[in-house]
Every structure is written in C-alpha cells, then in structure tokens.
C-alpha cells in the first residue's frame, strides 16, 4: 500500500466514522426522548387510573372490574399515542393473552416506587388510592423511533457524499487543488451537523408536545369522570408531574411555545368543563440547554471527515521535514494552546454569551436579553462618571513619567553605573512590593490624626487634611500613591531607553555646539519617543485596570470619589451579582483598550532606526 493510498483509506475511515457516528448519535438522542416520553406517559396513565378508578367496597384495593373498564377505555381514547399494558398485581388487564408481569419486577417496583425499564417498556408503579401501596403497574412501550433524519438531513448527507468523494480525490494533489475541494466539504459537513442537530431538536420538541397532548387528554378524561376535579384542578397534579397547572384560557389542543417569566415554556390548553380551562406548562425538551449540548458534539463529529482530509492533504503535499517540524511544533505548543483555549478563548466567548443574558449566580433562570445589558450600562450615569474619573486618574501617568524622565536624565549619565543602579534599586522597590500592603501602609500615612503626612503638615502649620476621607482630595491621594508605585518602573524603562541611544549622537550634537537642554530637546527626547509612547499607553491602559489599590485604600469612596472603572465593574459583578451587566461593561472596556493598544502598535511601527 503506498502512503497515498494509506492516507486515503484513513480519511475514508474518518469520513464514514464521522457521518455514521453522527447518525447513530442522533438516533440515540431521539430514542432517549422517546423513552422519556414513554416513562412520562406511563406515570401519567398510572396517576389517571388512581384518580378515576373507584375503590372496592371491601378492602383498600381498586374495584377490579372498574379498573378493567378504565384500563380498556384508555386504549380507545381518541388521539392518545401511548401504547399501554396495565397490570393488576402481575396480571395483564388490556390484553388478557399477554404474558404476566414478572414477580421480581413487581417486587422491585414495590421497593422503589419509581419508573423502571424492562426491555423496551417503561414500567410505572400503579399506587392504591391512598398512595401507600403499589398494587400494579402501567407499562408503556417506547416508540422504536422512526428513521432518525429528516429529508433536509438526507439532502445534506447526499451533498456530503459528493463533497467527501471530491476531497478524497484531491488528497495527494497540489495545494491549491485540495484547498478548493476541502473548503466546501467543511461547509457541507457543518451543514449536515446542523441539519441533524435540527432533527434532534425537533424530536425533543415533538416528545414534549406529545406528552403534553397525552396529559391533556388524560386530564380532560379525568375531569369528565370525576366531577369534583373540575373545580379543583390541583387534584390533577400527580397526573401532570413535571409540568405545572396554571389558570388559563381556551386554546388549541396542540402544544405551543410561549414566553413566561423570562423563559420559553411549552404550553397546552386543557378544557376541564365547558368554560373551565387551565393551562398546562412545561419546560420544552428542546430549550434551555436541553439539546444545546448536542450541537458541539454533533458538529465535532461532522468535522472529523474534513479535518482528516485536511490533515491528509496537507501531509501528502508537504515535504517530510516540514511535516515533522510542524508536528514537533504542535507538540511543543500543545500545553499552552490547550490552556489558552480552555482558560482564555473559551471564557472570552462565554463572557460574550453572559453579556447577552440576564445572569446572576444566585438566580437559576438566565433569560436572553439581547443587547439590553449594553444599553443599560451605556445609559448608566455612574458608569460614565467612573469612566471620567478613571481618565482623570490616568493623568498620574504623564505626571510620573515627567518625573521619571527627568530623574533618568540626571542620574543616567555616563560613568555613574554603580550609583545609578543603587538609586534605581530604591526607586523600583515599591514596584516590586505588594499592592495590598502598600495600600495598608499608605492608609496610615494618610491617617487624619496620626498619619505621617498630617504630622508633618501640622508641624508646618498647614493643618490636618483628611486625605482619604474628603471627596475633594481622595482621588489625588490615590494618584499620589500610584505615582509612588510606578515611578521606579518608568525610571528603569527610561534608563534602558537612554542606554540604547548611541553616545555618538550626543557627542556629535556637542561638537555642533548644542547645550545640555538642546541636546535633550533635539536628540535625546526624539530618540526616546517610542519608549515614551509605550510607557504612556501601557500606563494608561494599566490605569483602566486598577482595582486592588482603590479597593483596599478607599473602597471606592468617599461618596464614590475614587470609584474607578475596573473596580466599578468588579462591584457590579460581585457585590450586585449582575454578571450580565458586568460582562457587557467589561467587554466595552476591552474594546476600548484593544483599540488603544492597536493604535499604539501602529504608532510604534515607525520605530527609530539608529543608523
């Protein structure tokens, strides 16, 4: 077998495995829904029998002839889709010739009082009127399931076959040839995956609908036979387990979807008596992550074929060395790539999803609200004032940069290596230390009565200032701490930038007669421009992310005077528990910062070339 034939065989296997597994999975999902339906139908029928069958004159059990009649009547209910056998103890009632229920199965039911499966049938316990004892069972056969896919899916499958054959033939041909055929194959495969997913979803919806329809029939039948139920529909709750009965109006007999309480519900109108209607509501089988989990699984399986073809086509069209190098590279990248996919890229997608929902960790329902969260944070005056405050706060960056640049120029001159690095070590100390500890210490430096700052001010006769307690001074006080933290970092960066400027330029300027200020203004500063832009932009971006400092130092106060945007977002999420709003606002902030970084990169594109 030549390598090419081997690749083709492998791809053929991946293609068929992908398509067949997909179909098998869809079939499995659908039969799962059928089984759920059978179990629910059996439970409902058992509850129905409990409600409508009169008790025997003597003893606690049902009147057997009546039970027999009611059971047989179930078969005749028009439109009822359940196929039942009802056992009294182990004896079958509807079809007398059917085999009796196994004694062991009945024992099991007695012990567990829950739906069990025997082969293809769901076995629901039939309780006596008091609900104490299991007197029999209702067996409902699950539909074996029809052909698992719709015509749409069949069409997609046909297309898939064509595209797959095309791709199979393209393996081993030049790059542009296989690119042309594998692209469409991928699209068709995705289409097929989506079509099958739609089928699965449809099956789930259908199962819910049929269950609601059947339950409706049983409820109406019970109401017809037991008059007292008509005025007290709560008595039907055992019949409609898993759904809720709410007052309602007349409506069609088939289930429909309606929004209720921020979530979509499947509903059906039940007529208990002329003019007396209730509505039966349930979670739709297809909604609320009921089927959503299938989509990635199905799409993943659908992608198996195209990915295999891509791999094979690339492998056969690529020189062995490059292939080996690529495989090695992915080996080296695997840990970081998987980690980023799981802990960075997936969360970024998730946060977009969260931002489109009303989402709170303390509330289980998460209603889709489209862009409402964005609109709300956009209109929130507190958000705008936090943004404005953050812009003011970010002014500390140019301020401390000026200081850092001045320092760098005066201590960064030639021939003073040891002294400069000793000084730099002092300046960098706050940057290397912990923000929370810094905030704690500065809190006491700023203490209105006992703080070092006010002690000095009082001695100078300037009176104490309530630095952090006064809304007028609090932001400035936070900015001062920020300058103190970042000065050393900026100094270090500027010193490195200065070192990178060739001394010959300065010497040339000196020979040309420039004085110290002119040398700085005309030579040093322009050559430092990229470093300056970098420090400025990254500093401002950092300013938009300041959180721990204000949280510990001021808690955003007083009166919100130091409520910076990142801290504001934090509080929306973790104090107000509004994850949706917080996500929306954080994404908006992300977009702005992303734009700023992009602009900086464009600016720095014109890097200075030392020639």
């Amino acid at each position, binding site marked *: 077998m030549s390598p090419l034939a081997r690749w083709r065989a492998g791809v053929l296997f991946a293609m068929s495995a992908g398509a067949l597994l997909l179909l098998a999975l869809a079939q499995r999902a659908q039969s799962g829904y059928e089984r759920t339906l059978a179990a629910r139908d059996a439970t409902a029928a058992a509850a129905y029998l409990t409600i409508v069958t009169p008790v025997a004159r003597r003893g606690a059990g049902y009147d057997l002839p009546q039970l027999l009649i009611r059971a047989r009547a179930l078969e005749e209910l028009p439109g009822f889709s359940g196929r039942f056998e009802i056992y009294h103890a182990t004896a079958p009632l509807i079809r007398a010739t059917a085999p009796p229920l196994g004694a062991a199965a009945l024992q099991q039911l007695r012990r567990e009082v829950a739906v069990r499966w025997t082969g293809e049938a769901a076995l629901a316990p039939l309780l006596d009127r008091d609900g104490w004892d299991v007197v029999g069972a209702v067996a409902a056969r699950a539909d074996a399931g029809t052909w698992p896919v719709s015509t749409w899916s069949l069409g997609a499958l046909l297309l898939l076959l064509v595209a797959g054959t095309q791709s199979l033939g393209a393996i081993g041909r030049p790059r542009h040839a296989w690119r042309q055929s594998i692209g469409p194959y991928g699209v068709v495969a995705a289409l097929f995956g989506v079509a099958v997913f739609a089928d699965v979803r449809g099956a789930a919806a259908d199962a819910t609908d049929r269950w609601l329809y059947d339950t409706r029939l049983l409820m109406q039948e019970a109401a017809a036979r037991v008059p007292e139920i008509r005025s007290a529909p709560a008595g039907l709750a055992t019949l409609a387990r898993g759904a809720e009965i709410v007052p309602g109006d007349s409506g069609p007999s088939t289930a429909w979807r309606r929004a209720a309480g921020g979530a979509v519900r499947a509903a059906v109108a039940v007529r208990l008596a002329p003019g007396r209607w209730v509505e039966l509501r349930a979670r739709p089988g297809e909604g609320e992550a009921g089927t959503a989990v299938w989509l990635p699984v199905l799409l993943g399986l659908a992608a198996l074929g195209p990915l295999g073809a891509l791999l094979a086509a690339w492998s056969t069209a690529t*020189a*062995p*060395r*490059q292939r080996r190098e690529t495989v090695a590279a992915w080996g080296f990248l695997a840990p970081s790539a998987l980690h980023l996919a799981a802990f960075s890229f997936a969360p970024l997608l998730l946060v977009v999803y969260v931002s489109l929902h009303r989402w709170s960790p303390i509330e289980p329902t998460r209603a889709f609200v489209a862009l409402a969260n964005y609109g709300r944070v956009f209109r929130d005056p507190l958000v705008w004032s936090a943004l404005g405050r953050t812009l003011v706060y970010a002014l500390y960056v140019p301020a401390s940069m000026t200081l850092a640049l001045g320092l760098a120029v005066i201590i960064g001159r030639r021939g003073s290596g040891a002294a400069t690095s000793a000084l730099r070590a002092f300046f960098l100390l706050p940057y290397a230390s912990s923000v929370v500890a810094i905030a704690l210490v500065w809190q006491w430096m700023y203490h209105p009565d006992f703080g070092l700052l006010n002690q000095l001010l009082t001695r100078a006769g300037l009176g104490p200032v309530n630095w952090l307690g006064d809304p007028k001074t609090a932001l400035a006080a936070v900015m001062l701490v920020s300058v103190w933290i970042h000065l050393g970092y900026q100094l270090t960066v500027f010193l490195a930038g200065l070192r990178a400027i060739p001394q010959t330029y300065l010497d040339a300027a000196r020979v040309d007669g420039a004085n110290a200020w002119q040398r700085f203004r005309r030579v040093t500063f322009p050559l430092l421009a990229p470093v300056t832009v970098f420090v400025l932009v990254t500093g401002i971006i950092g300013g938009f992310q300041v959180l721990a400092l204000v949280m510990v130092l001021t808690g955003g106060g007083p009166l919100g005077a130091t409520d910076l945007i990142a801290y504001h977002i934090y509080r929306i999420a973790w104090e107000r528990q509004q994850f949706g709003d917080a996500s929306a606002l954080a994404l908006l902030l992300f977009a702005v910062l992303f734009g700023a970084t992009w602009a900086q990169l464009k600016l720095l594109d014109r890097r200075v070339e030392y020639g």
Partner: protein
Amino acid sequence: MASVTLRRLAKRYDPHGRPALEEVSLEVSDGEFFVLLGPSGCGKTTLLRCIAGLEEPSAGEVLLDGRDVTRLEPAARDVAMVFQTYALYPHLTVRRNIAFGLEVRRVPAAEITRRVQQAAERLGLGTLLDRRPGELSGGERQRVALGRALVREPQVFLLDEPLSHLEPTLRSELRAELLELHRALRTTVVYVTHDQVEAMAMGQRIAVLERGRLRQVGTPAELYGRPEDVFVARFIGNPGMNLLKGRGRSTGDEGGVVDCGTWSVPVPLERYEGEIYLGVRPEHVSLVAPDQGVGAADVRGVEPLGPDTIVRLDANGQALVARLHGIPDLRPGDRVGVKLDRRQLHLFDAAGARMR
C-alpha cells in the same frame, strides 16, 4: 569516506525572488579536498547546507556515495560540519562539546572517552578539555569545532568558512594544519570560502559560484591559467586579471588585432568583428619606454609590496594593473610604455565567455 554528487540542484527561498542556487551539478570524488569559492551571497553556503541536509533543495538531488539522500534528515547522512561561527555550545565544556554528537547517538561512555581523547590529542586540545568555549581564543575554538566534527568519523567533512574569523598569521598556520589533517584522514572535504588565496592554497579542485550559478570547476592551475569567463578571470588572482574592453578586428591569415583606444594589440584571432575583452594578468604586463610596446599609459599609483610592486595605470581611460619585480623608480603622473606578453593573452566575447 564517500563521493558527493549534486544533480541540477536548485534552491529558492522566495518563490518570486532570485533563486539562491540555479541548477548546480557537481561531482566531488572520494577523498578529495574540494573548495566552493565565491563572493558573499553567491550561494556557496546554501549549497553546503543542502549537502548537509539543513536546507531542503527546491529541485535536484544530492547523492552521497551514489545514494540519494535528498530527503534524508541531516543526522542520517553521516556528514559533519564546521560552522563559520563554530557553533560551540556555550554551556558545555570542550570535552562535552566534542562528545555531544556521540552522546546523542548513545555511543557507549568508554567509547566516547576514547574517541574524544584521540581527537583532542590529534588537535592538541589536551589541556583545554575542561574549559568552556567562552574561555578559549579564536584559534582554540576553531580547533574544538574541528574536533567535534572529527570525533564523529563522518564520511564527508563540510567546512563553512572555518578560518574567516581568525587573524591572518593564525589563519595560514591553521590552513597548513587542516591540509595535514586531510592528508592523514583521507576523508572527503567540501570547504567553503570567499577568499581566493585560501581556495588556491588548499583546494585540489575549486568550484567558483556567482549569483547562484556555477561558473567554473577545475584545479587551481586551470582556474588561474584558463578562466572560463570574465568573472572567474577577475575573481582569481590578486589583483585579478586586467580586462581591457576593445574591438576585435580580423586581419586575415589567422591574425587579428584588438583596438583599445589608440592601442592595437595583435592577437591570434580569426574572423571576428565586434566587442571583445582582452585579458592579461598583471604579472604579464611589463613597462618600457613611452615610445615602445603596444602603447603608452599614465601611472596613477605605485604600491610597493617588497618582492613585487603593483603599478596602477591609466590606459586610454581604462584601468590597467601591472605587477613588476622589485621596486621600480616610478611616480604617479609618469608616462610609460606598456608591453603585454603575447603568449599570455586571454580573449572573452561580449557576453564574457572565453573564446576558443
């Protein structure tokens, strides 16, 4: 030991740019000391890396001892290479540097010790074995790099400008040592250099490359005595061959002249009319009284070297260099007569290819 054969080897880095190598075919015989010579950027290092397997050729084949190794990994080719930068592992001692290749190939420890010892003795590295590359001089590093290649006992040695980073005296010393080593081992060597003196001194045969194309392959004597085109003529020799542009004119019965300005140089030329290059090596130019020889020229510069003197002349607006014995009494501005050795004239056509 093995021969190296290249068949129409080509390499392109950029699909739209100039190829780094254009259909180079070569045959290096077993045990030969073969030199690839050319100016920087001519593709000689690319060629060497293709032989080593570090570059994959865009087309063509590489054969080692008749076996096609074009698609083989470098490790599977059994060749050793000495890099221009030596590429010594900075964190390993000399001993471990030399042993690295053997360790990777899981040669038994005792065998490694023996072979490292042997290589160290051969190269006089005995006292340096426990130092790190950072503590060695250029010449010592060069020897370690050589030792690392030697210890592998490969079929072919590939040397990429191994002496270019050394000072001139050390360079000539190591040149002799390398030749000595080659005589002792009899292994095939492919040696890359841009220095034509080095190439002439070392190569049994030399291939001259220019802009990715093979210009000429031959022994040093062939390259010097019978360059195939003007590039080789100019490149080999120091200074290179004089090339005077002129017009060839046939004078009948196997005779002809080349007219360069006011000069008419008689040459053996049949039925040729048109532009021509007249080549003559500086040592075949002699100076006579202004009214003698083929014509007169002005002295532009005099560079006494000791045994010889290089005299730069202006002959009808064309530069001409003469190499004279001793130190003649000449000054810039002097007018002299020029005589060319008629038996040592080379003729190239307008495209630069050798005639006849």
